[in-house]
């Protein structure tokens, strides 16, 4: 090997991305101070907990009682690890924009606690491990869907859509909507229309949920050069879209009552919550005339309620199956 080959490019491309600033020679000599908690933070634990919850509901709602609880819990663990792995890969790719946003600047990579390359290796390794483990504990259909979810979130959403189109979270929402389908497939080996109905509920919930936040945090996204809807098409257009998506979302959220896996408890929660959701979406739509603080308050009201509503829908399904309403 020729001794005059420059070595700096390899060092400067740590993390596999040319966008990162080159590391100086002295930075490479110190040992890392990162603790296990920093690596755990890479997994986006709050997102992971939501994935665990929706996956569990998918598992429980699937026809036939769970035959083997230890195996089901291990499958759930594998799916949680897969969700965490995709979170780590997302943080690896988005480290530069995370550093510019108040909400994300304290994450382990922008805060300088973990190098990008380590986050990429960690996320990549856990991705492979989680898919393999799910294939072992459940079946190949579920493992394939989990692999697709990770691919979709990292490659399609994070690398492809997030920085290029205001439709980023509309299409990217599919990644967050897939966990109940993976859970359903883990129990039955199939992904029927009922499972995809749960997918559609989360998929249609995502735009009003994230756009409500984007209305308030539009400055952050502007600074980071992320083309969110309010920055690209304006607030008025975003408010109209929030209302239109809500009009489609709420009936779809109620529609599982037409299928055997959801009963009257779910129907009641979905209908009552749906009316309140529409009321908040309407307030956001009509709130364009008010002052900034009032508009933000209304938007955050919808954002907060959307989380509560989705949680209530899935909790209602879980309770119905837990108390044996569906045999």
């Amino acid at each position: 090997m020729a001794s005059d080959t420059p070595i700096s490019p390899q060092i400067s491309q740590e993390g596999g991305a040319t966008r990162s600033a080159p590391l100086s020679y002295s930075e490479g000599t110190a040992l890392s101070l990162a603790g296990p908690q920093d690596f755990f933070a890479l997994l986006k634990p709050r997102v992971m907990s939501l994935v665990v919850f929706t996956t569990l509901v998918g598992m429980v709602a699937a026809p036939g009682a769970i035959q083997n609880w230890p195996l089901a819990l291990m499958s759930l663990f594998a799916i949680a690890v897969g969700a965490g792995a995709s979170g780590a890969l997302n943080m690896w790719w988005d480290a530069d924009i995370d550093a510019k946003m108040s909400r994300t600047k304290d994450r382990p990579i922008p805060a300088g606690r973990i190098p990008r390359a380590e986050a990429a290796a960690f996320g990549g390794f856990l991705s492979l491990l989680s898919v393999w483990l799910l294939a072992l504990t459940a079946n190949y259909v579920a493992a394939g869907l989990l692999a697709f979810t990770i691919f979709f979130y990292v490659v399609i959403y994070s690398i492809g859509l997030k920085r290029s189109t205001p439709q980023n979270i509309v299409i990217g929402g599919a990644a967050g909507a897939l966990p109940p389908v993976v859970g359903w497939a883990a129990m039955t080996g199939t992904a029927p229309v009922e499972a995809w109905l749960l997918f559609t509920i989360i998929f249609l919930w995502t735009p009003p949920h994230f756009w409500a936040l984007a209305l308030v945090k539009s400055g952050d996204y502007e600074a980071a050069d992320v083309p969110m809807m309010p920055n690209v098409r304006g607030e008025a257009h975003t408010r109209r879209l929030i209302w239109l998506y809500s009009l489609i979302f709420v009936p779809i959220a109620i529609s599982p009552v037409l299928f055997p896996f959801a009963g009257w408890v779910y129907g009641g929660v979905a209908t009552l919550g749906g009316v309140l959701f529409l009321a908040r979406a309407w307030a956001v739509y009509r709130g364009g005339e008010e002052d900034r603080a009032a508009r933000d308050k209304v938007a955050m009201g919808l954002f907060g309620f959307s989380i509560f509503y989705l949680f209530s829908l899935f909790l209602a399904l879980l309770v119905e199956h837990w108390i044996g309403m569906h045999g």
Partner: protein
Amino acid sequence: MADETPKPDLIEAREGLATGEHHEVTPEEQKARKRRNMAIALGVVTFIVLVYSTTLLRLTQNIEANRNAETIGQVEIP
């Protein structure tokens, strides 16, 4: 922008020669490394337990399924 010219001691390191480079590990670095090592150990043990338990559970499930299939077979074939 960092100097992109290769440092002589790094070239020596790449060639497998002693560089004379020395880094004194600070107590904080040592503590952090120990915590990471413990976490890796815990992860490896969890992985072993998971794969071992999965294998046992799967085997039990399959043996039971085969036994049931045989029983059904005995009932159906007089």
